[in-house]
């Protein structure tokens, strides 16, 4: 059973290097079960989705990516992907709401579009989140458009997430009234509602955990709904700390000999040293895990996969998120 049954918009953030794109992709696969359709969006221009799923770079239009995690022999849903760039979003927005026609092209020609998307502060974020909003809010009145049961946003990093979602605040200094302002306010209503959850991805290291705690506090201060914390890249947990503390080289040597390996001193010493190092890191991870546990939000754990993250690994991680209840 999912911990987040009412959520339509899953925003995934995290410090750089913690694997938030991987988690976003796995979450999208996990949500797309039993015929449910999911849209996976990226906004940072990295084409990370295309790389993870090994497809051509994504255009500014929704592409069918793959099917979701199969569950109990039922037909899985479909994952679509969308790469949102601010320029295309602005042109689409102008065409859709203002029916500008010739004026829209004129704006582009004189550099208004470039100004708005690269130089004008805040506007960029409003355009990116605006497109996400549109995808979440769709209903049967939007003819020809795909309706989604859930949207997963691979969002900017933790340090920027509150600013990114707080669109009406970003515009407050610029547009106090006017159409742009009222649209931003409508978007805020969704982002602050229980239909949105901001999940934070971390690894069990000091700085990312600290940043996660700061990020949660920041989201709370701005009335944005905090989802779960996904602890990523967790080391193998097979051995207990007690076992690791009581490693006896003589026993290891005997065991190796027993299965036909040459118990050379260098091998035995190496294994014992690796075990000791592993124990040291596990102890540090343990402390950080306690800090994550004290954050007061549901947590989910994903293992570090030595082979790296390929498509198969994404399904494996999706399965783990599903069993733990993120999806």
């Amino acid at each position, binding site marked *: 059973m999912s911990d987040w049954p009412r959520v339509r918009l899953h925003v995934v953030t995290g410090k*750089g*290097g913690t694997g938030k*794109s991987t988690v976003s992709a796995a979450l999208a696969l996990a949500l797309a079960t039993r015929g449910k359709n999911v849209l996976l969006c990226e906004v*940072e221009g*990295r084409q*990370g989705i295309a*790389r993870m799923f090994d497809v051509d770079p994504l255009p500014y239009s929704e592409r069918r990516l793959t099917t979701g995690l199969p569950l109990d022999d039922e037909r899985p849903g479909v994952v679509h992907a969308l790469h949102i760039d601010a320029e295309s979003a602005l042109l689409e927005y*102008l065409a859709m709401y*203002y029916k500008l026609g*010739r*004026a*829209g092209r*004129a*704006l582009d020609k*004189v*550099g208004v579009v470039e*100004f708005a998307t690269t*130089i*004008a*502060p805040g506007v960029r974020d409003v355009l990116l989140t605006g497109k996400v909003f549109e995808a979440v809010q769709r209903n049967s009145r939007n003819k020809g458009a795909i309706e989604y049961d859930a949207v997963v946003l691979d969002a900017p*990093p933790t340090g920027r997430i509150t600013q990114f979602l707080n669109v009406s605040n*970003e515009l407050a*200094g*610029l*547009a*106090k*009234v*006017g*159409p*742009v302002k009222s649209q931003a306010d409508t978007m805020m209503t969704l982002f602050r509602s229980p239909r949105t959850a901001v999940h934070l991805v971390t690894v069990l290291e*000091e*700085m*990312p955990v*600290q940043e996660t705690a700061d990020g949660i506090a920041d989201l709370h201060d701005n009335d944005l709904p905090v989802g779960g914390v996904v602890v990523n890249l967790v080391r*193998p947990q*097979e*051995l207990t700390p007690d076992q690791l503390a*009581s*490693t006896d080289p003589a*026993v*290891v040597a005997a*065991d*190796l000999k*027993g*299965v036909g*390996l040459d118990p*050379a001193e260098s*091998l035995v*010493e*190496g*294994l*014992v040293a*690796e*075990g000791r*190092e592993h124990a040291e*890191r596990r102890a*540090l991870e343990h402390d950080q895990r306690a800090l994550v546990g004290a954050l007061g939000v549901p947590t989910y754990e994903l293992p570090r996969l*030595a*082979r*790296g993250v390929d498509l198969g690994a994404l399904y494996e991680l999706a399965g783990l998120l599903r069993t733990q209840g993120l999806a």
Partner: protein
Amino acid sequence: MAARTTSRPGDRSSARTRVGPAGPAADPLDIDGLLDDRSVGIIVCCGSGGVGKTTTSAALALRAAERGRRVVVLTIDPARRLAQSMGIAALDNTPRPVSSVDTSAGGSLDAMMLDMKRTFDEVVEAQASPEKARAILENPFYVTLSSSFAGTQEYMAMEKLGQIRADAQRDGTYDLIVVDTPPSRSALDFLDAPERLSRFLDGRFIKLMLAPAKGPARIVSAGFGLITNALTRILGAQVLRDLQTFVAAIDTVFGGFRQRAMKTYALLQADGTAFLVVASPEPAALREAAYFVERLSEDRMPLAGLVVNRSSPVPQGDLSADEAMAAAERLRAQDPTSLTAGLLRLHADQTRLVEREGALRAGFARAHPQVATTLVPALAADVHDLRGLRRIGELLATRVDET
């Protein structure tokens, strides 16, 4: 095959952790040679977020200082405890001496944290009359522009670098400046700053915005009406007026901006500058690193080399991952709780990780054979004091033989 360390396990202080197995080995990057080279006056560290750029910059600065250079390190967003230990907890745009640095070689270390908005304000104040400067600083467009203009942080880091460099040359305060760059989706945005400013300045948009302020109604073309009407519909009249005031006010200042940006650009290209690209052995980070390397060479920026942080240490013994897994399975069949089986699985896991990282770096080296590289092994704990930075400095300077 990977070189193996001969030091005894547990003897951590002298152990030279070897990282990474075979593949086309990149030339080793001689960090001490770089730090000792008196003709190098600026080292810029760039790379994607989360790869340890700030720590690397601080460690390089400390090592250079303790080898006799008079160094200032310009950081963007250090971890709180690291900042505290360096005495730069306050963000005030002023370099402060770092205490407990070994100055016996005649060097010194100052550190400062960049206040982006303050730097931007200072540039405006330096370029415009007090009256005009006030008008700009109070304009709502400026207020948000100075904190979230795409590339502002990058550009301001370079602006501050130019200032410190000029001061240092005048007063003889520093002979080496180490710069940390902000983590952003395009950390090299500062390279584009001069061009972007020029394009913006010379663009038709500015001219259109300035038209009503400057001229009689006759130069206002039909096209202009079309555009302002569209903008008014979208933004509202008030926003458009603010925008016009802002553009008019900043127009004179931008000329100065452009000039300064060009000067800083030239300074970065000069021989006294060295760029270091920082990465971790992950596909995304190395892809970004490749982009930086290509971009820097396109712009003829002097690249010193690549630092690969967080590299996994090569396990001892020549047991392959498959052999270890097979042995672990056999042991587990006899005793499901076997500790040795667990150790063997750890070994297999570690070996696979190292092989994967090695393959990733080999791929990078094949595409960029000219880039000298140094590897820094992953440390168990975060670095938050000078001792930790010194250790990182040693590891940075340790040449890894990948033969």
